[in-house]
């Protein structure tokens, strides 16, 4: 049940584009032709649904990965430094980021940098990385105080081996948090696309579809309800699957 909830939209998102014909007929906007009718410019909604999930899913995953790629080294560096001021200099600015609403950051940066998927990825990662950094710092701080690490340092083990040890030790805490980060990333990507940040206005993208087809809600509700429902299923599914996995790992 849980798995179906996440696998159905995920499969649709990743495999859907394969089933979209190269050449598509245009119809009148918001009519009933095709299984789900047509959208605001007369494209077939079913094909739009098939091709619109890939960007949402990929951008969310890549952005979450990027947030980890920046956040983990950042947090570990703050935790393992022997100079307190370095820790302060690294972590204090992150508190500030919290005081600014994430969508404000998103809109501002996207306006400065212009539209584009790369911009969207970078901004979502930027908004998400303070949390990753904070969690890695907390986890690494506990590891850094262990006698094992002290012993390694005294024995003159290389920085690479010590970092490897820390990495292995904190990977569990980080994995526990992965579900939250992924859903948060998905949430931000979808909301940003809905607001028109970083994606072209006629993109085949579930969130953009919801936004653009809203005007025809009375005429042809499928064009709005199907992509919205898919996003809902995907978020709920990802959250439930990770929650269950977490319970099994750490009962």
């Amino acid at each position, binding site marked *: 049940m849980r798995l179906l909830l996440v696998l159905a939209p995920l499969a649709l998102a990743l495999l859907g584009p394969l089933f979209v014909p190269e050449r598509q007929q245009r119809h009148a906007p918001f009519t009933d032709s095709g299984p789900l009718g047509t959208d605001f410019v007369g494209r077939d909604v079913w094909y739009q649904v098939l091709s619109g999930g890939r960007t949402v899913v990929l951008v969310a995953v890549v952005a979450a990965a990027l947030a980890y790629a920046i956040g983990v080294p950042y947090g570990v560096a703050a935790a393992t430094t022997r100079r307190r001021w370095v820790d302060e200099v690294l972590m204090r600015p992150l*508190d*500030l980021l*919290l*005081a*600014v*609403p994430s*969508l*404000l950051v998103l*809109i*501002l*940066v996207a*306006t*400065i940098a*212009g539209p584009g998927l790369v911009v969207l990825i970078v901004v979502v990662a930027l908004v998400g990385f303070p949390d990753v950094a904070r969690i890695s710092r907390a986890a690494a701080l506990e590891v850094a105080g262990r006698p094992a690490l002290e012993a390694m340092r005294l024995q003159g083990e290389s920085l690479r081996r010590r970092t490897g040890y820390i990495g292995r030790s904190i990977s569990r805490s980080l994995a526990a948090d992965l579900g939250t980060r992924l*859903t*948060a990333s*998905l*949430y931000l990507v*979808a*909301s940003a696309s*809905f*607001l028109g940040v970083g994606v072209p206005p006629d993109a085949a993208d579930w*969130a953009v579809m*919801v*936004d653009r087809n*809203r005007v025809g*809600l*009375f005429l042809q*509700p499928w064009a*709005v*309800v199907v992509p*919205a*429902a898919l*996003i*809902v299923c995907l*978020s*709920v599914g*990802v*959250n*439930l699957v990770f*929650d269950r996995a977490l319970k099994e790992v750490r009962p």
Partner: protein
Amino acid sequence: MTLRAYASRRLLLGLVQVLAVATAVFLLVQALPGDAAVALAGDQPDPARIAAIRTAMGLDRPAPARYADWLLGLPRLDFGVSLVSGRPVAEFLAAGVGPTLLLAVPTLVLLLPISVLVGVTAALNEGGRLDRVLTSLTTGLHSIPEFALAVVLVAVFGVQLGWLPPTAVGVDLAANPAVLVLPLVVLLARPVCTISRLVRAGMVDALSSDYVRHARRLGLTETRVRYRHALPNALAPAVQQVARTADWLLGGVIVVEAVFVVPGLGTTLVDAVAARDLPVVQGLAVVFAVTTVVVNLAADVIAFRLAPRTEVAT
């Protein structure tokens, strides 16, 4: 640390925070592409005209001077003047605050009772069927983007069933409470999930704690043990989350305002960014930062009072 010393220290820290956010946003806004003077010159981008507009708006002065002026105006609630309409920024903020409060206040009023009800019910049935259903529900619903939920609800209740108005276009919000029902449901969905889970966890912990066992041994009634002794301690972590929610609500819920066409602070922000109306963007950022600081301070003080043992962030 006494409460008073703690509060004043936090207040000072908050002031620094607001100042830093104001500075950061000023810098970010400087980096925005597009020149407001060029935009205002409109159809006749005549260099002389652009220069005239620039002088009139003070855009030709160096950035540090403008920054200093702007910063000194803030304590007097002088946020500068809108580039697009020439009206004071404070007017924009005042216009947006009304609808935002109209959404935020009822949400906050309903939030705690509902979350406590759900959380306590789940905690009292710990491990039972009701608990499992409630926990799955709150875990699942928690991550849904507001716009998706909002659109589905509008399609069902606004369009198919026709029970509630789908959007607030051209409607006086205060006079038509029915308009607010769907936005409130959407706004409540995520926070209720988060907070009821916190309440449940806190309540489960509290009910198995030594002091509750002791209270029971003393022969206090179960109701008294649950609601006078266990609940306040369970609420302390929830209060922090309520603060984050309040902060989010008062910051203008951009997405919900966009879906339901509510002219609150979020809409003001989106419009201002689209129109390159930089003073308005800056003013909004300062307001948001002040809200964050004040709300979090209030929450920490309340949490301190609820469970004095709790460690508070310094």
